[in-house]
């Protein structure tokens, strides 16, 4: 008896198909990749938002997510990219002028957004 289970919607993809690699070989986030992440996020298109975030393809998203992100001004500052000992990385961002910290994970060689936290 684990937690949730029946209450969890959607299905995670199989780790073999899409698990974050955790590879130490993942290259640092470039400025171009940072811009691409921001562009995907504000596209208003759920499919493109999914290109930027580490979410199972079969996980339903809130319908309001893509439009909400589309209304925001997002800048990802690749110069603040910092690899973490556990293989993830953090990078700073500004969203509507407020500072955020993004945690990135490498999935098949691409950095995707795992989580975001408002900077203190």
């Amino acid at each position: 008896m684990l937690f949730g289970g029946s209450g969890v919607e959607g299905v995670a993809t199989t780790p073999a198909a899409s698990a974050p690699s955790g590879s130490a070989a993942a290259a640092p986030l470039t400025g171009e990749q940072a811009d691409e992440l921001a562009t995907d996020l504000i596209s208003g298109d759920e499919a493109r938002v999914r290109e930027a975030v580490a979410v199972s393809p079969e996980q339903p998203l809130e319908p309001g997510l893509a439009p909400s992100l589309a209304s925001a001004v997002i800048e990802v500052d690749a110069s603040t990219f910092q690899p973490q000992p556990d293989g993830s990385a953090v990078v700073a961002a500004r969203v509507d002028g407020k500072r955020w910290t993004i945690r990135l994970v490498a999935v098949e060689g691409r950095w995707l957004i795992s989580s975001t936290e408002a900077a203190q």
Partner: protein
Amino acid sequence: MNRGALLPVLCLVGALCAAPARAQDVPAQCDLTTSTKAEAGQDEDKRPVVFVHGWTGGPLIDSANALSDALDGKISTYAFDYSKVSSHWASDSRIAPCLAAYLGQVSAAHRGVGGDGRLIVVAHSMGGLALRYALTPELAEKVPYVITFGTPMLGSPWGGADGPSRLVEVFQQAFGKDLPDAAGRDGGKCLAEHTKGAPLPDGCGDLPPWLPEGVTLTQIGGDATVDRTFFGFKAYSIPLAGDGVVPLPSAHGYPLSGPGGQPPLDGAKSYSRRSTCSIDFGLVNRAAHELAFVPGAMALDYLTLQDIQQDRFSLPVQAYLGGVTIAASCSHTRLTTERKSVDHAVAVIKEALTALAAPAGGTATTVTNVVALDKAGNPAAGWAVENDGTELDECHPSPAAVGADIGWCGSTAAGALVCWVKADRHSLLCGDFPWNKRLRAMVSTKAVPALAPPQTADPWGLELESGAKCLLRNGGSWPGRADEYVGAYSCDDESVFVLVGNDRVPVDRSGAAWTVKVGGLSATNEALPPPTTERVRTAYFAAAP
């Protein structure tokens, strides 16, 4: 798992668990010195609330303070502390029996200041299971209300012989906690999941017993939901239906958790409450990554969903739940102090205080006339007879009789205070207690004369407001005390006595609610505290068919 990884896991686990007298018989193996003194803060008008911590935990001081503050001083709080042996299973001889002794002490101390001796117990995690092992039907009369926070009634995925809990116990040993034998009553192992009467792992002994009749149990469980958000915009939510350590069905699982898998119809009543909270995935993620066993770059949510759905307690799931346990406000470690949980407990305690303030069963004392025989002289329905064979030499009207031909027969050693005389005038059926429906068949060497009841009978037995059951004295040599009081009834195996003063009236029947004076006796006639007044819930007399 490397050493760097171990520390945070163990710290998390400290989380798994967490949240303490004399006069009574305390087993030799019990160390109650670090528990709150049973006499501390006792007040006739304050209800004692005893707090019991969980596996690898320590005294629930913060929780006690939170509840005391919220209840405006209407309770006095007592923390039972078994932290040195808290890696052991709840039924360990240094836990459950010691808790029972402690509850007895706190109850006696409350009676000592004029209270009724009834307690409320608040238990966290495995503490709730320790209480189940501790509560005998007799002790349960002193503990009518129990509240559990995150008690794994049906175990936890973190428990079991192959779970990570053993590492925690090894770690806790470094801080002075006793390390249990892994093959024996190892707490972490015995916290394995189970349901519907399935046995605990080898070495753990029997399942926790069902709570006795008269106990009202409220199970409070934590229910965390993780919100996955990006820059504050919600993407989706994952309801965990648990507190990170104990799944909600387990925290609410009392009705499936005891021997046989089904509670007795006349057993305790149980109710469930839920404390919900939401937490952003970012905080879970950060906390999880602080647990150094989390593999590099684990995108927890990415990997975890499937495992959670398929009931796999994989490393990502452990990391995820670990993060929740660290970060969520209603997590297992925070449940005893979290606002919603405390509000639930306060509401339950307020109801209990109201119920306990009202005399049980109404104001008036209930008078029960016990008739052990039918008109034909046979045992009444439900009464059992044992052939004793004791010969009695003389019978007089029983002081407890309210009907004819009920005798009190010698010698004192025969214990024949209440005997129904059969038609042959030689055969008698004698009752030991008015409440257990057992008779002993005895024989009088002389024909018993017609016996008329006394003008004013004394109750054969008394059930007091505190739940204590008291039996009328049948002669013999009793201990005494320095003042004028002597023993009239012995209660609960002579742990306490109903006393009679110079007026020689043991029961004050001047009102609808009868009262007695209750106090101690000493083999050396010591000066003892003055007796306290206690209401009689039920008075039993012996009546003719």
